């Protein structure tokens, strides 16, 4: 009976007793969720246009952030290092298309997936050779990203909103909005969607597969850079950032591999729910550490009812 009370009553009592803390938990969840959504978005874009599950998305985050910081360390002003990093990410996209993807056109999906593992290993070695393995400080101040925090005092308590987190949230909203406009209102965007819908049909009307692949890998590179800046600002830029890509997997399971909206809503939902669960159930009842599995279990439960994910396409194949 006591256990039932601790599961079904106590957490809600705690929430009601300290609503300011609840707001802080939800805010932190939203920030984490935004960053998960950004990583997932990189996966979705590439999968949508090429049916490739891009294992290299995590290392692209590291590589983009390292390039930015590395260029600055080499004496390039921060505001110039930013566009230069974008140029590097563009050439990376071109190189991946020319050297890895183009020779593998028409190969089974698993071959392309394995190729992205190869890209990951190459970028790890290449990145460490060029920039070294030590943790680097993200150049937030030099990029004029506001530091500090704003304190609110609702319900007699306090809620701290870090300006860095707020900036990450605003940047993510702008990025996603631009992406949606790009995908829906431009010729290239429509071509990406067409490729996602039907490769053969898209090719038959003259859409250039290689050009679209370069574009989507470049967009994934831009997303990786924004993600790298946001995460790197929290704990420095190191190869450990690669691990955060793992957090996108349950988001993809939940939102569906092909849905931009799914990646965003899935990311936010997992970010907030895993934080609430960890704080109000995980830590008091299980000693904490539930964030490692909660998102997967949650996604699994959703998949039981919607095997294609919340926003994924239901695939019907004729036998």
């Amino acid at each position, binding site marked *: 009976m006591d256990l039932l009370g601790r599961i079904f009553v106590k957490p809600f009592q705690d929430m009601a007793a300290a609503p300011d803390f609840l707001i802080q938990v939800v805010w932190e969840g939203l920030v984490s969720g935004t960053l998960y959504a950004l990583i997932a978005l990189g996966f979705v874009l590439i999968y949508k246009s090429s049916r490739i599950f891009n294992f290299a998305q995590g290392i692209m985050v590291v590589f983009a952030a390292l390039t930015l910081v590395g260029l600055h360390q080499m004496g390039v002003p921060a505001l110039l290092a930013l566009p230069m990093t974008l140029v590097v990410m563009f050439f990376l996209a071109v190189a991946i298309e020319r050297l890895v993807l183009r020779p593998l056109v028409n190969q089974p999906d698993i071959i392309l997936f394995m190729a992205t593992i190869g890209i990951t290993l190459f970028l790890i070695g290449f990145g460490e050779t060029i920039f070294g393995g030590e943790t680097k400080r993200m150049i937030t101040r030099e990029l004029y990203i506001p530091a500090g925090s704003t304190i609110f005092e609702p319900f007699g308590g306090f809620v701290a909103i870090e300006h860095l987190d707020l900036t990450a949230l605003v940047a993510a909203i702008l990025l996603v909005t631009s992406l949606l406009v790009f995908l829906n209102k431009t010729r290239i965007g429509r071509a990406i969607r067409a490729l996602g819908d039907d490769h053969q049909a898209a090719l038959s009307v003259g859409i250039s597969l290689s050009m679209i692949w370069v574009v989507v890998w470049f967009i994934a590179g831009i997303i990786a850079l924004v993600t790298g800046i946001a995460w790197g600002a*929290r704990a420095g830029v190191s190869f450990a950032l690669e691990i955060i890509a793992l957090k996108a997997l349950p988001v993809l399971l939940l939102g569906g591999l092909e849905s931009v909206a799914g990646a965003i809503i899935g990311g936010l939902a997992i970010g907030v729910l895993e934080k609430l669960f960890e704080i109000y159930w995980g*830590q008091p009842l299980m000693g904490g550490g539930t964030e490692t599995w909660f998102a997967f279990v949650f996604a699994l439960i959703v998949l039981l009812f919607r095997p294609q994910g919340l926003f994924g396409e239901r695939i019907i194949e004729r036998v």
Partner: protein
Amino acid sequence: MKRLMKAAVATTAILAAAAFTAPHLLAQDSLYVPNLSYRTGPFAATGTPLMNGQKDYMTLLNERDGGINGVRIDYDECETGYNTERGMECYEATRANAVVTQPWSTGITLQVLPRTNVDQIPVLAPGYGFSPMADGRTFKWAFNPPSSYWDGASMLLNFVADGDLSSLEGKKIALLHLDAPYGREPIPLLEDYAREYGFTLLPIPVAVTEMQNQSAQWLQIRRESPDFVFMWGWGAMNAGAITEAVRTRYPMDQFFGIWWSGHDGDLAQAGEAASGYRAVSWNVPVPDAPIMGEIREHVIDAGLSSIGENEIDWVFYQRGITMSMMLAEAIRTAQEEFDETVVSPEQVRWGLENLDISEERLEELGMSGMIVPFQTSCANHTGHGGGWIIEWNGERFERVSDHLQADRDRITPLEEAEAAKYAEANAPWPMNDECEL
């Protein structure tokens, strides 16, 4: 004729293969010292300066002295990425000619430990590994000088209690730890202390995937308001925790780390905001130590080091140097005892068991003040040299305490009990009956 040609080709191939075989397989006048290092992966930022220090000290001995007593050190790294499976592969790949193995993670150490009695290669795990390895009667082949994690936990408790542990009654101490064998290592001892002295221990695990995003853990710290936070962090977890502590406004003077959480590279992320953060450490950087001048001259200026800019006075770089010094001293001790220059693993084991890193010896080595003095013995494989508290001043770590010692009266029985438990779980486990109490 064809047969003759085939034989000639085969002979050439064999000779060519032999010529390209690693020198340590052929050389008779060198000692093969493998290091299961990690310069890549999520823990590279903390591993790299340590490996640099280890490598540079061995390079110094080779360049300046031609090795140890005329025998060159064949220092070799095998990359594990701090991954236990890869660590075991490295162990297998390097053990054949090794006079020692340096597993470099508590997880790998725990895997290697049961093999030591069979393979008969000493395991050197300075300041890490399984704390009961101190018991030389049970762990004949394993060494973790100069202080164990339990020593570290005891020193931290005594420091925050100002020597009076009863003052901790009613207080709350959070243990923010990596959710790995290393991070869980101090829990049994701290629980024992908590029961005895009436404080609350709150273990807060941080999974590897959460190292860079510890908001949940720091929300818990905000809710629980512990009197002190002890950190057993590694890799990106350290920088993540320091950043979150600053964001949460947790008082830095109540935040302490074990020696692996006292890394300049991690603290530099928060810079001035992390001023006041302290860690217990068995080494401190001494920029003007004579040995540092020698390393600068013979290794760094000669272009033989991989050290990064401004890293020479980092706690971790100089710790790497002291680690290799321990091994070099063990080899030297063994050479003198057995009157042989190319010593065997068994002889190096004896050397590790008879290390006497006294103040005088440190002075001779040009390393005064860089590491706590300690002495190992057959029964005591740690040496229990104690440590110092170091504090981050916004730019670098400084020593801020006198020499601290662990509460050995409390730790020794626990070590013996845990060692006995380990031996029982791995029975039949050979004990070293030669050791005297």
